[in-house]
Structures are given as C-alpha cells and as structure tokens.
C-alpha cells in the first residue's frame, strides 16, 4: 500500500510542471547570513495542552533602532529548512542584501499538538483545529501570546504599519494565513497563500461569501494555486481558490492570483516566493483588471420546442393558493394536464418554481409544448406539470411576477420549509382533482436562478419525495447561504436524486457570489460523490435562453429509464 502510494505520488510529481527553488534560494558567497533560532512553546494559553516548535530569523542587517518588517509562516518548519520547498532564510539573506526586500524578520510557527499522557497514546493533532477554523484564535495566539515574548527575548522591534507585516502558509497554513489577516487586519496587511485550503475542512469555504458581503479590509493578498490540486471530501482546491480570487477582485482588493500546473505541493509557491515576498510589501504592478467583453452565445429552439401537427395538446388552468406554512402569502399556480392523462392511472409530477415563466408558447422554456411533444413520442411519461409562483403578501400581485415579495425567503433559504409547503399543502390541493403519484421516482422539480436552488433544496431535504432536479442558472450562491451545498454534498451520503445543471459562463458576479463558479462547484461536488448528474456549461448570461432550449434534452435525460424496475 505504501509503495503504491509512493509510486502514485512520484508519477504525479513527474507529470507535473518542474518547479524548483530559483537562484535567489541558493546560498551566495559574500552575502551575510541572518540568524535562525529555534524555540519551543509548551505552555500555550490559546490552545491549552499543546506543544510546538517555532523559529525566528533575524537578518544580519537588523538594527533595533530601525523597526523592521515581519513575515510569519504557518507550518514554519517547512519554510525555514535550508533545503526545503521555499528556503526562506536564504531568500531573505539574498534579497535583503541586494536591497530588494526591506529588512524583514521571519517567524516560523509549527502547529501544536497535545502529547499523549501515557506511552502508546497518540498525540491530539491540533493543526486542523488551529489552521482550518474560521476564527481569530490562531491570529490572537501569534499576535498577543507568542510574538510579544519572542520580540522581547530577541530585542526585536517591528514597524507599526500593518502593510509591513505579512503572513504566509501552504494548504491549511494558507487559509490560516488569510484567516489571521482577515480577523486581525490591525496587525497583518499582507497574505501569501500557496495551495490554500479555502475548502470545507472546517468551514473555510465561507470566505468568498464573507469577502463579498464585508466592507473591504486593508489587505493585500497573493494566492498561488495549481490546476492539478486536490478534489476530495473537503472540496475542490482550484475552484475554491478561483472563488476567493473572484471575490477579492469583485471587492477591489490589491490581489494577485498565480496559477500553475502542479498538484498539492509547496514547490510552485516556493519557486515564486522571492517575487511574492517583494510583491507583498509593495505591490508595484498592481492595477484593477478591466473586465474583457464577454462573448454571449445565442441559443435557438429546436423542433421539440415548436408546435407539431397531430400532437394532442394538454390543458392549463390557473388557480390561487393561500399557504399556512408561509403564513399570510397568496400565490397563483397553474396545472398542465396532458391529453393522455387518465384518472385511473396516477400521473407523474413535475413542479416548476416561478411557474409564470414556463408557460408562454413563445417564451424561453415553453413547457406545455415540450411536454405535449415528448409525452406524445413516449420520451417522457404522462406528467402533470404544476407551475407555482412564489408567495406574495398584499392585495395585488406585482406586475412583474419575479418580484413577489416572499420569493427570496421561500427559494433561497436552506432547510425543509419549502419542501413541506409543496408536500403538505400544494400537492395535496392538486391531488383533490387529479390522481398524482406520490413516489419519488415519479416526481421531478425544476427552477431557474433562485428557483433552481429551491428545486435542489426540495430534493436535498426530501429525496424520498423528489428524485429528479433540473436547475437552470441556479443561485448556489450566498443570497441566503446556498453556497454551502458543494461542501455539504461532499460530506453527505449520496442521495438517490438525478440532477441536471445548466450554467452560463457569463452569469452573474455580484454581492451574493459568482454564479458560473458556484455552478462549477456544484457539478464538481456531485461528480466527486458519484451522483447521477449532468452539467451543461454554456456561454449564456443570467436568463432562461440556454436552459429553455435545453429543456427537451434535460427532460429526456431525467426521465430516461423511468418505469423500469429499479
């Protein structure tokens, strides 16, 4: 097993780009060497019971009368090593000597662990707790507990401006560096994160959402990430770094994103570190990127979305519903009953959120036409369509039906409230007139934008009631927490639900999130857990054009194999 793992890793390394420490990481004659002093921190107040090593690097040029810069390294042992991935003391010696870097003190801190009390007992490893938790604890430990003692012991004085202090780390150390600066921007002004774990190891997936909805902080952030980085139970590293980068750009942070071809290794970050160190204290080349004009694709309907001669037409009726679960709301809903429906045979069901948008014969989605055609051809079962609008409080419905005032609460909220509304209120009401199947295998649910995440949420909460989801341009973003799904999917037993996702590369990028990346995250998570899913990623914007054109394909795929013995 170990040999296999080793070979696997070796092959991975050989195949990846060849990143190695550059000339600035080599010892040079005549360059004065700073001191590296090892210390142990065994009476930790922030993390009781832990022990750890730390190292302090003091440049030869350091003069206590002239306050220096400071750079802190998480997993410090790896960064301080003379022949390690980054070789910080050598790099600092060279750059400071050439005056390309201000005189900078290095503090290299290892994560703690609680040793076993008796022989044979494993230590309690504290790295994930300290690094992956989204809180100020680790920053406070470094700033308020460790640094003052180290500074006093070695007579170290640092400059007051947070922009003269940076924090750096790899992987969980990378997110730890960001977390430290995010919670203590009064101390740290710069972050260097290599292959940062902005994933769900312990909730770190929240940063893109937090960054977008928090007042911009005075931070400069450099992210390095590799296209072959991890895709595991905790998350998808390349997509998560792309999301953090997009959020930083959206808020106008001084930010640099460096992409490479490596996997989960410190070598690429190490190889560019001399440049990164210089950049983090000055950001000389920084300018806000202009957004390139997107190429928007046009999608055209095909035959299945046009009226065909000789195809029997179903009937659509419209009703009003007053909900008890969403108290005080009223809504319209329409019911499409196919011509082939027979009361003695329970019909399949498909529920469409924002129902008004799906009914128009010349609209983007044209569900009644598509249903008529596909049911006639036997490409989907006899299905009753329920087109439900979001709830509204007040006497008259708004002219623009998308603006019903309870829509966001019903659609964007996590939890089972909307599924309960469908299963305990609306479907029973429709069942009074029509014979609807109650089996999950016979029930599908669909929506676009917030309606898309709403459809997914209903099936997520009640996979015993809905087994098929079609989401168009789904808002798996932080309107009300929907960005959590990729993280939850990766750590939840697979649900028996088929999911068809449609996304667009030119979809929204706003306070709530980045729709294209959010949908990519969903698809990657479903893929990791082996869900039966399909992701069609087009060049559309935030509208129903592409999703509407895809409807016949999506329905064929969702209903394929229906009625066969499971």
């Amino acid at each position, binding site marked *: 097993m170990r040999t296999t793992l080793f070979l696997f890793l070796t092959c991975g390394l050989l195949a990846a780009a060849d990143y190695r420490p550059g000339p600035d990481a080599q010892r040079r004659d005549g360059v004065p060497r700073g001191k590296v002093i090892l210390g142990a921190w065994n009476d930790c107040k922030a993390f009781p019971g832990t022990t750890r090593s730390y190292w302090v690097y003091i440049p030869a040029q350091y003069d206590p009368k002239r306050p220096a810069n400071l750079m802190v390294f998480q997993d410090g042992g790896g960064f301080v090593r003379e022949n390690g991935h980054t070789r910080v003391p050598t790099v600092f010696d060279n750059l400071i000597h050439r005056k390309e870097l201000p005189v900078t003190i290095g503090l290299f801190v290892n994560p703690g662990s*609680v040793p076993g009390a008796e022989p044979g007992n*494993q230590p309690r490893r504290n790295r994930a707790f300290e690094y992956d938790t989204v809180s100020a604890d680790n920053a406070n430990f470094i700033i308020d507990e460790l640094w003052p003692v180290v500074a006093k012991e070695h007579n170290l004085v640092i400059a007051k401006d947070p922009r003269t202090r940076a924090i750096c780390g790899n992987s969980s150390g990378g997110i730890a560096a960001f977390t430290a600066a995010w919670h203590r921007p009064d101390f740290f002004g710069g972050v260097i994160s290599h292959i940062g774990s902005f994933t769900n190891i*312990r909730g770190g997936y929240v940063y893109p959402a937090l960054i977008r*909805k928090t007042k911009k902080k005075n931070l400069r952030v450099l992210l390095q990430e590799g296209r072959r980085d991890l895709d595991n139970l905790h998350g998808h590293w390349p997509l998560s770094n792309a999301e953090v980068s997009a959020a930083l750009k959206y808020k106008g942070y001084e930010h640099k994103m460096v992409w490479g071809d490596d996997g989960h290794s410190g070598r690429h970050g190490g190889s560019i570190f001399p440049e990164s160190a210089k950049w983090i204290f000055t950001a000389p080349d920084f300018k806000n990127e202009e957004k390139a004009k997107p190429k928007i694709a046009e999608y055209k309907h095909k035959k299945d979305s046009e009226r065909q001669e000789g195809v029997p037409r179903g009937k659509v009726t419209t009703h009003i519903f007053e909900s008890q679960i969403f108290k005080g709301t009223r809504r319209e809903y329409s019911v499409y009953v196919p011509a082939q429906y027979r009361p003695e045979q329970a019909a399949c069901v498909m529920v469409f959120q924002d129902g008004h948008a799906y009914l128009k014969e010349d609209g983007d989605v044209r569900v009644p036409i598509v249903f008529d055609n596909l049911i006639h051809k036997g490409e989907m079962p006899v299905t009753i369509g329920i087109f439900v609008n979001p709830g509204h409080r007040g006497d008259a419905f708004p002219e623009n039906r998308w603006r019903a005032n309870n829509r966001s609460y019903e659609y964007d909220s996590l939890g089972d409230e909307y599924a309960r509304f469908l299963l305990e209120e609306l479907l029973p009401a429709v069942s009074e007139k029509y014979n609807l199947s109650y089996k999950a295998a016979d029930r599908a649910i669909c929506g676009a934008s917030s309606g898309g995440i709403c459809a997914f949420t209903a099936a997520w909460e009640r996979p015993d009631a809905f087994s098929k989801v079609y989401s168009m341009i789904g808002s798996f973003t932080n309107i009300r927490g929907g960005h959590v799904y990729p993280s939850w999917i990766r750590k939840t037993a697979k649900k028996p639900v088929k999911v068809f996702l449609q996304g667009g590369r030119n979809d929204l990028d706003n306070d709530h999130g980045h729709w294209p990346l959010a949908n990519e995250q969903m698809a990657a998570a479903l893929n990791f857990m082996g869900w039966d899913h399909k992701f069609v990623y087009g060049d559309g914007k935030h509208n129903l054009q592409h999703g509407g054109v895809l409807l016949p394909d999506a329905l064929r795929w969702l209903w394929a194999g229906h009625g066969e013995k499971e």
Partner: protein
Amino acid sequence: MKRIILTSWIALAGMLGAQDMPLSQVLIPGEDWRLASFRHEFTDAPTADAKGNFYFSDLRSEQGLYQIIPQGKVVLYLKGMTGISGMKFGPDGKIYACRARTRELVSIDPVANKLTVLAKDVRPNDLVVTHKGYLYFTETPKKQVTFYNTKTGKMKPADVGITAPNGICLSPDQGTLVVSDFRGKHCWAFRIEPDGTLAHKQPYMTMRRKPKPSQERTILPEFQPSCRGDGMITDAYGRYYVATELGVQYFDPTGRISGVIPGPPGIKGITSVAFGGLNMEYLYITCFDKVYRMKTRTRGIVYQNGPQAYPPKKK
C-alpha cells in the same frame, strides 16, 4: 530501498497532513439502513460484547435489555433490567449502565442477571469504561462529566460546563475522551491523565447543524445552535461517530467532520449509534421505536479489549 521508500512516504505523508477519511471508506455502494428491530417505545444504550453480539435497551419498556445476535435475530437478553439509557461492557465482563429514571449508576453481572447499584442520586445519561476500569458518565442536567473508579468506588466530577453533555466515547488507544453536547455545536475532547483526571478540554469537533432561516438577511446564513448531538461511538480507524438530528455524523482523528449519514426516511430521530456484528462491521442506530443497521466497510472498536493502536495495520 525499502527504507528509502518508507522514509519518503513518511515525509510526504507529513506534508500532506492528516489522512482523509471520506464516506467512500465507510459506506458500501448499494447498502442502506435495514430495520433490525421494531415495535419498541424508546430504544437507546446500544453496545456490543467482544464477540460482536449487539445489545440495546427500551427505556420505557418493562421487559429489559434486548440482544441482536450476529445472524440478526432479536431476543430478550436480561429480564427486568429496565430504564437503561446508556451501557458498556467493562474489562471485567460486567455491564455498566446508566439508569436515568431511578437516578442510579449500576453494574450488571450478565451471567447471574444480578444488578448492583454503584451510585445513587446521580443523573446518568451515558457512559464509557476504560481498560483501567475508569468509568466516565455524563450527567446532562448537571452539565457534568463524572468520573467513577470501578476499582475503588471513588467518584468525583471530572468536568463541568458543557451545556448538555450526552454521548461519550474513547479514542482506540483510550487516551482521549470525547463528549457530545446535546444543546451545543461541539463534541469536546479531553486527555485522560494517568490518575483518571480529564485535562486539556477542547471544542475539537464541530457538528453540522440544521439551517435557521429568517426573513432578515445576514452576511452568512444562521444555523441552529445545536443538532441534538447524542450517543457516540468510535471505530478502529479512530473515527468518532455521533448521533444527531441530521443523521450519524463522523469525524476523523484530527477532529475534521468527514461524513454525514442521514437516517432512513420517516424516523422520529436517532438517539444513539454503535457497532456490532461478527467483524463489528454493522453500524446500528436506535431510532425511538425502531433499531436499524447498515453494513459498512469499517469496523467498530471493542473498548473492553483494551487500548488499540490506530489506524489498524493492513493484513
């Protein structure tokens, strides 16, 4: 050569951090929850003996303790041993049990079917016993974990302050004790000192909780303050399992949540979780009136067999 490979592996493993423990290491495709026992009122106190026989209690029944033998048959095990909310076999072969209703900590000699009261006027909920005979039980209403030395009969508070301490389990090497909080979001880790004291308390594991939607928009969504973290158990790889209202959640030995396994549809809730079966490969859950089990890829730990190194060596 072998040494070089081994050394490189260790170096790489160190770089990669702790070992990941995804659901694919626990679940078997196609396996699901199967009903193991039903027509009960309030099942709890699941545990297994060293042979993998599985036992549970019906708290509200007047019958006693039940046993599920590895073939899956349910039989009445000990008549009259009623009102038990948590139990484990000790290293001495006795069953140690919490009798919540009568507020007693008891031991049961299963051969003689004889019950001995160890402590009265306590509020025991669930317990665990180490190979040294150190017994720790949760007293939920008192916010207390209590230490009872089965060898000396001495009892003292070991920790006070968890909102509602409930489930309790040990690491495979029996050096770490973990307690779930029924009204909070954490499972708390302690180091067991040689004299039985609990040290270095830490909110080491954070449980997933249900969302708490509100009309008001917040920067990040709100979640419920707790997920009703209840009974706990450990497997041979050092994973910690806790019964919650979202299903069985498990954590790797470094405290990272690694999987949530929802219970079967339609259950009222999950009160506790334990392993059983000839190879300890079945994960059992007690769900009020029913008990379910699921075959897994992993195997549970038998605490009464003493401390075990983990992860186990591959054969």
